[in-house]
């Protein structure tokens, strides 16, 4: 008996497949509607994924934030009020370094110190707000894509001695500008070709003066090794970067503002944070240990992404609903036209559930074909968009980047499953009523 049923269902499945292939013209618009829905959702998801990836890359890699940030407690909220009160002391740093050396997930760390003061170059005098950081480890965290961050000159770690890199706009204020005339050097992701592009400074050495932690005056005299783009013009007018050692020398301190940790595997982050928190508590140290995404530094990004996610969800809902309407349309028509066929099949002994199953399978196959077509369309469009090399600004802080769409496998699979389920369900629903008709009435149907 069970075997007989299986055979019937197998037969109905074959029938459904033949029906779909035979009547593809009638279903073309539906296939196209579903396919376009698939393409829409896949492209948008791929675009979002690419944007998220770019932004994440920007923070994690380019800005050297790694996976986990460690700061003195509440520093992210209060350090603007009193930098030194909320800086990490030497004791806190020793504790963290010791922990990192013994932690199996640790890969590398970068320390940062926020600094501000005055830049003097000849008669020019202007404010700077910058960053001192571990240059070697910073370059490693930035990786091959971002390690070369200067538009002219060389990054700090490439220069043999103490030096400073300055923002483009700051350079303009002190007569320090790029003289590069060669081919474009900005790559698709906004990164640069790694080469020493020429620049000239009217005053090659600048003096950076600042008030130290103890409110004493200090100054260091350093050459400019490179010029970089800090993005936002107001930041670029003041931006400097130098090594942590030089920054600490300038501020006469052994404190740091922030420490970022890169792990061997990002997925180990939760466990790592838990261990470090427990160790800090045991050592009676008040530290904030958190993923960079939860830090105020990333608030700008997170806010933007949250909005985009809302967009995506709304968009998907609408597209899927419209797709379902199309399927419903097609299936209702198909069922209506084939009522006599239904009657015939019923008269031959097929049960209602067999017929409902057949139509459901037709819906399934229809959507499968549509999703396959959608996948082809997605691939073609993804490649085409990449080839267009259309540049756009992904927010106020960034240089224009090339519009691209990620290969979002998860979105494709999810989309297919959702569309197939919904199409099958719609077909099932539409066919139920027709299958309940009295056989004679069905066979007489015009």
């Amino acid at each position, binding site marked *: 008996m069970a075997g007989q049923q299986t055979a019937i269902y197998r037969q109905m499945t074959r029938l459904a497949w033949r029906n779909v292939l035979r009547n593809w013209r009638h279903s073309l618009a539906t296939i196209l509607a579903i396919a376009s829905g698939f393409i829409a959702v896949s492209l948008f998801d791929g675009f979002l994924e690419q944007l998220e990836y770019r932004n994440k890359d920007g923070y994690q890699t380019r800005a050297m934030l790694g996976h986990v940030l460690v700061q003195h407690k509440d520093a992210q909220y209060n350090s603007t009020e009193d930098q030194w009160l909320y800086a990490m002391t030497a004791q806190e740093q020793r504790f963290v370094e010791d922990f990192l050396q013994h932690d199996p997930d640790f890969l590398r760390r970068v320390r940062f110190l926020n600094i501000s003061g005055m830049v003097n170059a000849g*008669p020019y*005098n202007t404010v700077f707000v910058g960053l001192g950081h571990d240059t070697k480890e910073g370059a490693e965290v930035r990786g091959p894509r971002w390690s070369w961050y200067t538009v002219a000159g060389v990054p700090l770690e490439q220069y043999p001695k103490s030096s400073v890199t300055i923002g483009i706009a700051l350079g303009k204020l002190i007569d320090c500008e790029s003289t590069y005339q060669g081919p474009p050097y900005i790559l698709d992701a906004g990164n640069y070709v790694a080469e020493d592009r020429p620049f000239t400074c009217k005053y090659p050495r600048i003096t950076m003066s600042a008030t130290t932690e*103890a*409110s004493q005056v200090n100054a260091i005299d350093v050459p400019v090794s490179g010029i970089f783009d800090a993005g936002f013009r107001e930041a670029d007018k003041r931006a400097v970067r130098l090594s942590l050692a030089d920054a600490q020398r300038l501020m006469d301190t052994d404190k740091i503002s922030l420490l970022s940790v890169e792990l061997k595997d990002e997925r180990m982050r939760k466990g790592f944070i838990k261990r470090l928190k427990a160790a800090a508590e045991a050592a009676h140290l008040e530290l904030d240990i958190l993923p960079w995404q939860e830090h105020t530094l990333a608030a700008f990004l997170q806010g933007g992404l949250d909005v985009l996610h809302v967009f995506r969800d709304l968009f998907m809902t609408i597209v899927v609903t419209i797709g379902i309407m199309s399927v419903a349309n097609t299936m209702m028509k198909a069922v209506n036209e084939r009522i006599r066929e239904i009657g015939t099949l019923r008269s031959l002994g097929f049960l209602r559930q067999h017929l409902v199953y057949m139509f459901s399978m037709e819906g399934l196959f229809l959507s499968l074909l549509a999703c396959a077509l959608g996948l082809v369309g997605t691939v073609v469009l993804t490649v085409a968009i990449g080839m267009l090399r259309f540049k756009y600004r992904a927010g106020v802080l960034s240089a224009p980047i090339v519009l691209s769409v990620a290969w979002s496998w998860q979105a494709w699979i999810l989309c297919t499953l959702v569309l197939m389920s919904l199409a099958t369900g719609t077909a099932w629903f539409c066919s139920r009523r027709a299958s309940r008709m009295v056989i004679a009435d069905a066979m007489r149907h015009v």
Partner: protein
Amino acid sequence: MYKAPIRSLVTVFAVLSPLALGHASMASGAEGAPKAAPAAPVDAGQLLKDSDRARGAVGEGISWEIDVQTFEDGTTNQVHYQVKVKGVDALAEAMQPARNKGETMLFNDRNLWFFKPGLKKPVAISARQKLMGQAANGDIASTNYSRDYDGKISGEETVNGEACYKLDLKAKAKNVTYDGIRYWITKKDHLGWKAEFLTVSGEMFKSALFKYGNHLKIDGKELPFVSQMDINDALKPGSHTLIQYSQPHAEAHPESLFNINNLVR
């Protein structure tokens, strides 16, 4: 982040330079004209005390007037102050020009307040504000060498025709602006002749040249007193401040004169 060429603080601190005389002179009392340089070995600490003595601080107080001219970016500013000092407290009031008249600085040891007519209460000037831009001049003028620095004689040089001991001064604590000072004191009269104010990293930030054309009568004795201080900015060539002192005289000041609550009128 904030750039504040608080140049006029120069005036106030310049005014306060005789504070450098501080306690040492008061403790030892007015001892008449500085002695000739003692025979070797010369004690750096004593040299500092002697040089401080030459810059004032007597008994119940001292008063003088100063003219401060600042030259920066091709512009010149000039303000005339009346100064009253007692121990580590000082009060400086601008008398001219009219736009600056009434501007007052009160120095209670290391605390500095600024007041001018129209303000509802004095402005507390923080350590960081004192150090920004030209405000560094003020710290030079108010430097208390013997109190705040340990000295070591590193050699002898002739500066502007005067034979001098060269001293390397190191701050005793972190609560002074300049971590180190190179100081030249005349061998003959133990007067501070030239100073180079160094950053934590040992670079010269400011420099000052002194002249002692005034005399201060204390207990019938005449002491040389500073008449001019020329402060140069090492980071901004061509930018300097010239402070000229006049009419120094001993004058008893009540303690209440240096009370912050008296500033609010």
